[in-house]
């Protein structure tokens, strides 16, 4: 029963203001660390000051005697904490598997060795500083040069890449490096735990309330129904809040131990230690082509660092598999262990570092071939997904290149190095392509039609800042044909129907079918109530003859306005609300029928002034092919944010581990440099909205990560065009350009 088919009226695709905007601009949106409870205590973790070794002695006496201190907790007195059982599902997914304090071994700098609890935050901080720890210290390994610690695994293989490479005359063999990067989400990781004797209520800043519950119940050793995770607003995550970090288990364990609400807020420095990061990658790319530019082989052998205990893989070959047409491809992966905290996903994991390597390599190849880089890509545009041997659902990368080239004015590019000038500045023009998976997680949602004429959708997902509240309000408004103001969205609570993780840009796509089904069910029940309620207008009418249009219940053979508002049906039946449940499957199971991705192209201009060593990204044109954009305002915002983050990635971001102590050196926002508004270039974003409904009925794919993919390569390519210097290790350091 489609609610409304009048497209001009549909909220889908309409520029829509964030429904949570007013709360955010007045300081009234409540985030984790804003929760306060009577009797609440503050906990501050003690981080190890070595990166490798073990605890010899922990002296807490002085700390315990300090004013306001309620105790100092560690392995001997915190109580048992468990591991998450191995699980291939995303049902309980953790990156750092070791619960805090499991043993006395220290494997990374800043690993928690104790935690101080006091009445105030200041007292707890002072007590944490007063805990004396002696260590048996060993030299840490934080080497930046990566070698495989484990067996090299083949990610994907077709043809004989080595043979083709050996036979080729035009080829390239280079290694590209992306550094460890720290997410530096603006809201610091924090946890507030309340325990009532049976049930934990955990106020968390998490990209997955369901996952967080599923992990924490195992860590705490209690049934899932005894853990409730709440996350109504979060100050973004970019991957760093997908899985729980040790402070969450500490807060919960302390709340149980002390019978008091506990608040832990990490410092910026701690967030560099035990809250995830994008690992360093080292990627050897070998490609060959024939004289006409047709690729004959690609070998992409990548390594990434991981922690001592956890196997985090940065899937750098993700795009390489399907991005170019090439008969001979081999992609391998291996890990290199370091005394560094556990890495995790960071915006566009795998594809973002991977495309830096392959899209830089393609630029280098184009130069060898004396060919325009777009031309090279057009020649190697595949007709199907050659890795899975299935058709593409919707791939319009060529249109992205063409549209971008036109908007940017690429035709005016003189390929000669340093040849383009403006106002005394040297210009560099570069481009690169982008790709990101488009899939769905399983999802459940409920839709309620209420007797006050409003509707509500509830699901256990969360709005990490991308605009999920608003997008779901739009979907609900579309499905029940009501105005946006009448649509309420409830998220951020693990007791709601299980919703998806906010990861992989999949929330919107995953929820559309579930919400649609839930709305359809609710409307079905409504119509059945309409014909079954004695005395009501449509009592006794065959339900098949009934219809629902924009809030009105009516007979199919009459106009909507001749019917009755739906709340009247509820009133006459004396129902407070009518509820429909809907669910949809994940698209990960089984062999897909089509290969689903979002695509994009970036065109970048840099300006270079050698004497004062100033490099600036002055102009970016980005074209995105991500299907239907449900809220163009939010969509453009996502891409702009990603592009600016990409400028930071290309020019500034780099977590620097000091070799003797293993500590991140630049663990603050003065030394870990993010782009500021003055770094924002002249920025154009275009969406190509090709229709394809393989993923859901609106044809909406994710847009959270695609904007970052490929951008660093486009910048490095532009820098080469300006300076003649090829940067294969990010970030691009001015030092490297001054030769």
């Amino acid at each position, binding site marked *: 029963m489609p609610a409304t088919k009048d497209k001009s009226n549909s909220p889908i695709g309409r520029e829509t203001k964030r429904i949570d905007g007013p709360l955010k*601009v*007045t300081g009234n949106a409540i985030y984790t660390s804003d929760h306060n409870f009577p009797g609440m205590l503050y906990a501050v973790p003690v981080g190890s000051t070595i990166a490798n070794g073990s605890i010899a002695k922990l002296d807490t006496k002085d700390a315990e005697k300090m004013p306001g201190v309620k105790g100092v907790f560690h392995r001997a007195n915190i109580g048992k904490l468990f591991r998450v059982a191995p699980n291939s599902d995303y049902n309980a997914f953790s990156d750092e598997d070791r619960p805090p304090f499991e043993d006395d071994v220290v494997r990374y700098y800043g690993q928690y060795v104790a935690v101080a609890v006091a009445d105030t935050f200041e007292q707890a901080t002072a007590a944490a500083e007063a805990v004396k720890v002696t260590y048996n210290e060993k030299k840490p390994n934080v080497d930046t040069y990566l070698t495989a610690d484990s067996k090299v695994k083949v990610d994907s293989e077709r043809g004989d890449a080595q043979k083709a490479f050996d036979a080729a005359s035009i080829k390239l063999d280079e290694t590209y490096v992306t550094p460890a990067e720290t997410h530096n989400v603006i809201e610091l990781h924090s946890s507030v735990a309340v325990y009532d004797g049976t049930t934990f209520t955990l106020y968390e800043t998490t990209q997955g309330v369901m996952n967080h519950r599923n992990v924490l119940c195992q860590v705490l050793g209690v049934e899932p129904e005894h853990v409730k995770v709440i996350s109504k607003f979060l100050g973004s995550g970019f991957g760093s809040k997908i899985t729980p970090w040790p402070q969450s288990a500490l807060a919960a364990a302390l709340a149980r131990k002390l019978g008091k609400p506990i608040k832990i807020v990490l410092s910026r420095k701690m967030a560099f230690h035990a809250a995830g990061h994008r690992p360093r990658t080292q990627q050897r790319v070998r490609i060959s082509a024939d004289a006409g530019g047709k690729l004959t082989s690609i070998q992409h052998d990548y390594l990434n660092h991981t922690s001592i205990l956890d196997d985090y893989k940065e899937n750098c070959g993700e795009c390489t598999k399907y991005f170019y047409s090439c008969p001979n491809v081999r992609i391998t992966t291996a890990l290199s262990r370091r005394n560094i905290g556990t890495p995790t996903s960071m915006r566009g994991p795998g594809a973002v570092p991977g495309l830096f390597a392959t899209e830089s390599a393609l630029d280098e190849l184009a130069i060898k071939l004396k060919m325009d880089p777009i031309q090279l890509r057009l020649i190697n545009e595949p007709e199907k997904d050659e890795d899975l041997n299935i058709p593409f659902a919707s791939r319009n990368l060529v249109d992205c290149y063409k549209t971008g080239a036109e908007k940017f004015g690429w035709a005016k590019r003189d390929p000669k190095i340093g040849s383009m000038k403006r106002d005394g500045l040297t210009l560099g023009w570069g481009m690169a392509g982008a790709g990101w998976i488009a899939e769905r997680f399983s999802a459940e949602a409920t839709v309620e039609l209420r007797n006050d004429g409003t509707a509500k959708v509830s699901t256990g997902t969360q709005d990490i800042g991308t605009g999920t509240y608003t997008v779901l309000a739009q979907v609900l408004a579309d499905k029940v044909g009501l105005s946006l103001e009448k649509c309420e969205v409830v998220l951020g609570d693990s007791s709601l129907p299980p919703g998806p993780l906010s990861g992989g840009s999949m929330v919107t796509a995953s929820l559309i079918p579930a919400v649609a089904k839930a709305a359809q069910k609710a409307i079905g029940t409504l119509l059945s109530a309409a014909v079954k309620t004695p005395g009501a207008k449509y009592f006794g009418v065959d339900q098949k003859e009934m219809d629902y249009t924009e809030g009105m219940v009516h007979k199919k053979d009459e106009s909507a306005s001749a019917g009755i508002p739906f709340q009247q049906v509820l009133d006459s039946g004396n129902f407070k609300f009518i509820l429909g449940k809907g669910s949809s499957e994940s698209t990960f199971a089984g062999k897909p029928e089509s290969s689903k991705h979002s695509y994009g192209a970036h065109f970048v201009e840099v300006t270079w002034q050698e004497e004062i060593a100033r490099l600036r990204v002055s102009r970016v044109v980005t074209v995105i092919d991500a299907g239907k954009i449900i809220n163009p305002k939010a969509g453009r915002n996502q891409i702009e944010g990603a592009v600016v983050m990409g400028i930071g990635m290309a020019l500034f971001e780099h977590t620097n581990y000091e070799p003797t102590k293993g500590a991140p050196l630049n663990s603050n926002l003065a030394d870990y440099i993010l782009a500021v508004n003055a770094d924002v270039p002249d920025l154009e974003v275009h969406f190509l909205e090709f229709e394809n409904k393989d993923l859901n009925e609106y044809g909406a794919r994710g847009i959270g990560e695609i904007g970052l993919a490929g951008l660093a390569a486009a910048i490095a390519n532009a820098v080469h065009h300006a300076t003649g210097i090829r940067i294969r290790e990010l970030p691009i350091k001015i030092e490297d350009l*001054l030769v």
Partner: protein
Amino acid sequence: MRDFVLLYVNGVEHQVSGDDAFLSLSDYLRYSLNKCGTKVVCAEGDCGACTVFLGRLNAPKSGIEYIPVNACIQYMYQLDCTHIVTVEGLKVDGDLNRIQQSMVDCHGAQCGYCTPGFIVAMCSLFEQCDKGEKSCNVTRQEVSDALTGNLCRCTGYEAIIKAAMSVDEKEYKRLDNLYPSQTLISAFKKHHDEPVSVKGEESEFFKPTDVKSAVEYKSNHPGVVIVSGGTDVCVNLNKGRIEPKNIMVLTHVSGLDELKTSGNTVEVGARVSLRKLEEFFQETLPEFHHILWVFGSPQIRYAGTLAGNIANGSPIADSLPFLFVSGAEVEVAGLKGDRRIKVNQLYSGYRKMVLTDDEIIVKIHIPLPAKSTKLKLYKVSKREHLDISSFTAAISLERDGDKISNAQVAYGGVAAVVLKLSKTEEFLNGKPFSLDTFRGAGEVAMKEIMPISDVRGSKDYRLQLAANIMEKFYFETADEKELVCP
């Protein structure tokens, strides 16, 4: 002696004493008052998420002047006789104010965590403009400048800038209209000149109101930490690098907030903010103005002082190279009276000044360069704004026809203190004004410095800059006809 700090928060009076007086303003708001709209993200002035308005009596004591500051690096003892307005206090008659509405309309808030800070910083732009003129058209550059102290990880800033650009200044309702200034003015006037001292569990602070008692307090309390704008001190407090027993705040010491020109010299009181200086030098000396414009962020410049920059004595303090080459002097007050010290003779080692235990800086005298002087100031950093320098330089000289005279060269970030390069100066003096001369000077300069490698740049990079900057100076100051392209 008053034993509490008197302040207003969103129009409500608070008397703060005991340990609460030793909290940062952000902790006081969030923990003591449970006002959690103000966010803490870095706790060291780098991100602006904690930005609030600080209102205090203006110089003629006739009104309240509101400035944006980072609440994480303002401690309660600095805030006597101030009115703090937080993001929660900006609504107009219960509705969003014009800026808040615009941020909603333009999607300036994604996750929303940086938003409160942006809102206050943006309002401050409108709060500052006008100043009696008819209208104030906010340009993109002004918006961008006003927001350099605020980091956002989500939006890419574009939507935020648009939000500010689409506000008509006339629709913005000023704080004076939300919080009638009369009550505040009379309360502050009454209590402004009272010295204050508060004892906490472990520390004590003193707010003197005249130089004499400040000097006496300092000499009686060795190790006292002086707090002016607090933009250096409070970062150190937050990082646990210092735990002072005694603190003295200079916020209300009379006579320290004067800024004037006397003959050819500019006199800058120790309490004059960098922001005031920035405005002052806009026309007087654009070269120095530019250095002040890229100094930290608006929040830092509104709070921070030149005296603090000098006394902090960092080898990469942005004001120092200029003060070194211009022959500026600091005037210090002590038990034995006042004396003057040349800034380029002020330092005895890394962050060490030659002051005696009782002395404080009261004034800085800056001789203005002659019209004929060729002066260039440089700051090299990764980001142009809100970034600590990796290298700084000041070069100044005269030309007698073809010959160079009176060369003054100072480099920062190349040793433990800012260096005056006397050998380089000697090399330049009397030489012809030519590219060869400056190339040669670059060589000499490289030998005169001793840079180290750190997170902001390698040793080699700094050496290279030391040489390059000489060439750059030549190209920037040479007459057109002299320019020979390398």
